[in-house]
């Protein structure tokens, strides 16, 4: 049963997105869409026909499946409610990051493939952001991995000793910035904009329609929840089950949902309280976070906590 914990991410990730959307709407004084809207959107998109540009190659058609599959594989590697199982050895942070990166690579290729200006812009910007974010994420994870003595996510979650230590706080701050960038949220990207010229993630998938678009969107929802889950596994594993007992799983599930709501609230709050940063100032933001990540590693090595 614990082998199927990735289903939680697969099935509940649209709901999390709906929750963030609803929160943002409330912060703006609007009623907002219903919580289940992302599901309705997915159902609607799956039942629509696809429009494909004549100039696209196989990459364009394959990319949604590769992106979706890679996100799904990544979600199998993460302990959601229990550290037992999780396909055992496979749950390695480095593999995790690069499986997601493979999906990103194909998404960027697909953005270029249709030959439109916006797709190219989106891909180029996405790669710029990725170059800055990936090393920072790795550094944060290394801090955790060194302190846990393992790069296996389940082992890190079980042996997390960094709680509330200086290095832990530094790494967490950097990691939150990384997540904001990875999930395409303000101040890095604006998920709700209709201004093509400012898009990053939306720019890459602008040419997609119908089921292809549904897969891309769904993969994006999953990636968001996946990164939230990873944050919790590594920095706040408190409450996660270490066995597969029915009671502990149920308890862990409740804790997990609370954690996700907390992360969702944090994201909605960050998005509502600030404007998007100018694109060329992104490096300063991300480099700042990189310094935090680096300091956290140094702090750990020097102070041992």
């Amino acid at each position: 049963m614990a082998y199927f914990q990735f289903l939680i991410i697969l099935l509940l990730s649209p709901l999390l997105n709906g929750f963030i959307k609803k929160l943002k709407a409330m912060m703006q004084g609007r009623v907002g869409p219903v919580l289940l809207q992302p599901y309705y959107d997915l159902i609607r998109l799956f039942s629509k026909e696809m429009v494909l540009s004549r100039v696209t190659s196989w990459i364009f058609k394959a990319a949604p499946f590769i992106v979706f599959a890679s996100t799904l594989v990544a979600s199998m590697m993460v302990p959601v409610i229990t550290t037992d199982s999780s396909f055992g050895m496979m749950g390695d942070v480095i593999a995790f990051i690069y499986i997601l990166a493979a999906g990103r690579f194909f998404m960027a290729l697909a953005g270029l493939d249709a030959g439109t200006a916006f797709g190219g812009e989106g891909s180029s910007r996405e790669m710029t952001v990725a170059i800055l974010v990936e090393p920072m994420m790795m550094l944060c994870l290394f801090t955790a991995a060194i302190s846990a003595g393992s790069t296996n996510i389940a082992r890190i979650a079980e042996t997390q000793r960094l709680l509330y230590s200086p290095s832990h706080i530094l790494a967490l701050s950097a990691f939150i910035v990384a997540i904001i960038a990875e999930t395409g949220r303000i101040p890095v990207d604006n998920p709700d904009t209709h201004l093509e010229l400012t898009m990053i993630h939306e720019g890459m998938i602008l040419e997609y329609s119908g089921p292809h678009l549904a897969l891309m969107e769904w993969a994006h929802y999953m990636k968001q929840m996946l990164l939230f889950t990873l944050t919790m596994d590594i920095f706040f594993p408190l409450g996660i089950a270490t066995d597969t007992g029915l009671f502990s799983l149920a308890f862990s599930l409740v804790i997990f949902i609370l954690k996700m709501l907390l992360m969702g609230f944090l994201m909605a709050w960050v998005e509502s309280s600030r404007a998007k940063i100018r694109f060329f100032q992104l490096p300063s933001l991300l480099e700042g976070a990189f310094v935090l990540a680096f300091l956290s590693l140094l702090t750990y090595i020097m102070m041992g906590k």
Partner: protein
Amino acid sequence: MEKLLKKAINIKDHLNEQYIEVARDDFRDACRYLWNEKDAILRLMFAVDERSISGSFKVHAVFSIPGMDRFFIIVLSLQEPVRPAHGPELVEGDDLSFPSLTVDIPAAHWYEREIRDMFGLNPQDHPDPRRLVFHESFPARSYPLRKDWAITDSDAKEWGEGMAEKEPYRFMQVEGEGIYEIPVGPVHAGIIEPGHFRFSAVGETIFFLEPRLFYTHKGTEKLFESFGFEDGVNLAERVSGTSSFSHSAAYCMAVERMMGVHLTEKAEAARTLLLEMERLYNHIGDIGNLCAGTGLTVGYARGAVIKEKLMQLNQRVTGSRYLRGVNLIGGISKEIFPHSDHIRSTLDIVTKEYKGLMKLLLGTVSHIERLENTGVLSREIARKLGATGVSARASGIPDDIRHAHPHLFYDRLDFEANTMAAGDVLARMMVRTADLECSISIIRTILDGRYQGENAAGTRAIPPFAASLGYTEGPRGSIFYWVMADHAGGVFRVKLRSPSFCNWPVVPFAVHGNIVPDFPLCNKSFNLSYSGCDM
């Protein structure tokens, strides 16, 4: 000035308009004199097909000199070249032409191209030989504003052929290493009208931008000619949705000046009040819209809420959210002042909410940081290209029609023409906030007064061939109408000039050197109307 008047063939005065007809050779000099020596502003430029009256086309260039409530209208008559009975056939170069002003007065560039498209009068030595208003599909050598224009069979056939056979429009090409073109539009995401933008960018930096507009040209000026003066008000209201009242007020003013009708005090006060209410809801909306450009969603939502309250107030006071159906030739059609208390109480709420919004915006560093030094329009460019309204005032040009040419109630009110020096997006926002506070105080002052007279003064017959200017300061800038009557007192020609027609050409200069993702923000700060341009 005397020298200019001495050279004139014919001088005609009408209220604060002085029509100075000059010889062809003096046309350029006269305009250049006003522009260079007197620092005059080119308000508008247009042609009239007077062949049925005086046997000639007339080109008008309307100038006004800062600090002087007077319009100097330089007029040039153009006779159609007559082919001698046994002479050679007329060739291309023998087309009607007039000396182009663009090289000396860059602000004339679009007007002259418009005249070429509409009348077939060729501005000699104009640096840009391309069409402006009409796109490739429009038949060549078909000039709709000529009085004898008709759609011929060959025109119809040409339309049927569509674009395929035509020579494509040549965009300016930028060459060099690393330059790539980004075509955007004409169809955009979001509910806006069509316009094409061709960026030449180096990486993310905009090197050159060429906008192409007029996709939905509506032939409004031609349409005016088939309407009566009264029905024209409805058409003027529909030129640009969010400036409905300013447009119809300017149009009515032109017609009233032709008739010699003076508004009652009450009608003047009401029109001034509604003009300011239109400015109010526009400026609040624009300030909120800037937040959509920076992704500050809360600011955007709050701006939209305040704007909605003002539009509901419009609805309650006039029956129309866009203040339509109020203006009449000779006055207004609705009682405004019985709603005084309601307007006051809504203003109180709006003022409070607006203050809260400004506190939020100015307190959000990430928002202000995006606006600062973005989309800088230099004073020089703004002056040369004839920018108007907020765009001009944010670049340090203190031009406000309400001051420059006081009309309605404005000479009895105490207010400033708000300017800023920086010329960036932030400056345009701050000019809007200053304007907005000004509007609120004007509305309050007007509501405090008591006014005599009827709502409408009634109309009078229009003398044959009468012509007059009408003008207002709309939310986007100055709006001009020039209306002329025919021999029987019907509409002969209506020229309208919306602020967007003046301000679109400055956008490429303001975005130069900015990055592509900042373009929507720059564009929003000018808040230009496509419809107001595609007239």
